[in-house]
């Protein structure tokens, strides 16, 4: 064993390699890998026909479409408004700026169930926002619009926190050069600034999207949860479980697991592009991938 370990690493006088790596692998297997393998093992027992019946039923397809569609819209809103917020927080000074800056991480810190009941109360027909919106004929709570609101909330910190450090490090001399060469401010933004922050914006967008697809707690209160209309994929898994339809739940879970693995790969690719382009340290995008505010 020790000879294998020695071949795997360069010599170092620092102790504890075998102990810490061994414990890390043991813990990951116990907590993460064995349970996840159990899911794939259960799925393989179901058989193709049954898997297809449950995983691709019209109700399941409708729930995937809703989870992906609403996450896409929420992430797109954050793409635009998150970039704007990052810009304003980095470039301008205004009252309560530091307070708002700290609050950006609220969706990371606030439990999703709390966010869910708070948003539902705000947008319910008699809520602070719901009352005027309902009077204007716009129904948010218990509709697809409500799901988009919840997913926008959940994804809010991702774009802001990936773009902020890149904007801070951006060389102002490039903008000055563009301006002195006669570029207007809008032209400077679209030709000089935006290309520089684009990898970061896309990374934040992808992270917000991935988070939204699997989100459960903040959505189920505001969603209405009508099959085929306002039922997200994670809720369908819970419903199947409550009906003791384990193979149905497993099939949908496997579809979602495969999708999240693919998204994880895509996000890793985006992040290495981001860190190459910005030539920044890898720690920030990496920590953000973890859903951790930096």
């Amino acid at each position: 064993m020790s000879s294998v370990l020695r071949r795997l690493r360069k010599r170092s006088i620092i102790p504890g390699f075998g102990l810490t790596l061994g414990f890390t692998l043991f813990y990951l297997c116990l907590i993460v890998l064995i349970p996840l393998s159990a899911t794939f093992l259960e799925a393989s027992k179901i058989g193709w026909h049954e898997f297809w019946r449950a995983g691709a039923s019209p109700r399941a397809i409708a729930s995937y479409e809703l989870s992906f569609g609403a996450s896409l819209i929420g992430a797109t809103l954050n793409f635009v408004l998150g970039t704007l917020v990052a810009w304003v927080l980095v470039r301008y000074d205004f009252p309560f700026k530091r307070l708002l800056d700290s609050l950006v991480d609220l969706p990371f810190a606030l439990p999703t169930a709390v966010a869910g009941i708070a948003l539902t109360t705000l947008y319910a027909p008699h809520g602070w926002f719901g009352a005027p919106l309902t009077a204007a004929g716009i129904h948010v709570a218990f509709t697809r619009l409500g799901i988009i609101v919840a997913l926008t909330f959940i994804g809010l910190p991702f774009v802001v926190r990936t773009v902020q450090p890149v904007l801070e490090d951006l060389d102002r001399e490039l903008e000055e050069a563009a301006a002195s060469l006669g570029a207007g401010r809008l032209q400077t933004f679209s030709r000089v600034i935006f290309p520089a922050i684009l990898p970061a914006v896309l990374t934040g967008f992808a992270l917000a999207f991935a988070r939204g697809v699997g989100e459960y707690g903040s959505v189920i209160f505001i969603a209405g949860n009508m099959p085929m209309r306002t039922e997200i994929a994670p809720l369908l898994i819970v419903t199947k479980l409550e009906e003791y339809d384990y193979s149905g739940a497993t099939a949908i879970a496997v579809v979602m697991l495969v999708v999240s693995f693919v998204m994880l790969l895509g996000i890793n690719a985006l992040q290495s592009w981001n860190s190459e382009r910005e030539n920044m340290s890898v720690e920030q995008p990496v920590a953000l991938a973890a859903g951790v505010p930096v």
Partner: protein
Amino acid sequence: MVGTLHLRSAPAVGESRLIRGTLIAIAVVFLSVFLLAPLAVVFAVALGQGVAAFFSTFSNPDTLSAIWLTLVAAAVAVPANLIFGIAAAWAIGKFQFVGKGILIALIDLPFSVSPVVAGLTYVLLFGAQGLLGPWLVAHNVHIIFAVPGIILATVFVTVPFVARELLPTMAAQGSEEEEAALTLGAGGWQTFLRVTLPNVKWALLYGVILCNARAMGEFGAVAVVSGHVAGLTNTMPLQIEILYNDYQFVPAFAVASLLALLALATLVVKSVIEWRIARRGARVT
């Protein structure tokens, strides 16, 4: 000289007052609607019928047992993932070995798995219909719909937090200081406690508070394995769901306000840590 410097920074690379004001207004409105309003409504409803109604929530035995279970789950999940995080960051940050990238991706995995799917994996492993179900039933061990399942699900969703915060810091510190300590005759454990730990203490604390916030607030994964046995397997977020679906809005929001306070405390500690790191960085340069 000052004059030339002033002139040099003169080229107009700012926006007009109008655009600047409009952008600030949009950002402030967006953040107020999506962040301040949800936070405010939690406390408004919790205290909406007076302080007495707020406090009477906490005489409900089911609510108290939910608070207790949340504390128990966090008391197991946070230390477990703290030890894991330190071990993982030490192995990955201080050594070069084959397969490092894969290991880092594996540590990240719980963040990209939907919490509901995470809960389901434990049901499929330990549930009565699950792989180990028959054996567990025969030996009268209850994991799913019982406290161990809740703790396991909480551990799963919080695996990456401490490791993820420590890893970049430990890697950035390098190994020179540890090597010096070891050369001077310090033991491995002594080197870790006296040299490594002081260097990474802020990142460690940061990881712990984020891990704790998530452990106490986890909903989806815990909801799947809990079975919602009142007074036995409900955590605070699950109790909020039950109270809310039962139209007991004041109690639901009263419990929610405790978790919102926890979130605010987490943000305050985070800001303080960032401020300290920034100040230390400023002193070094």
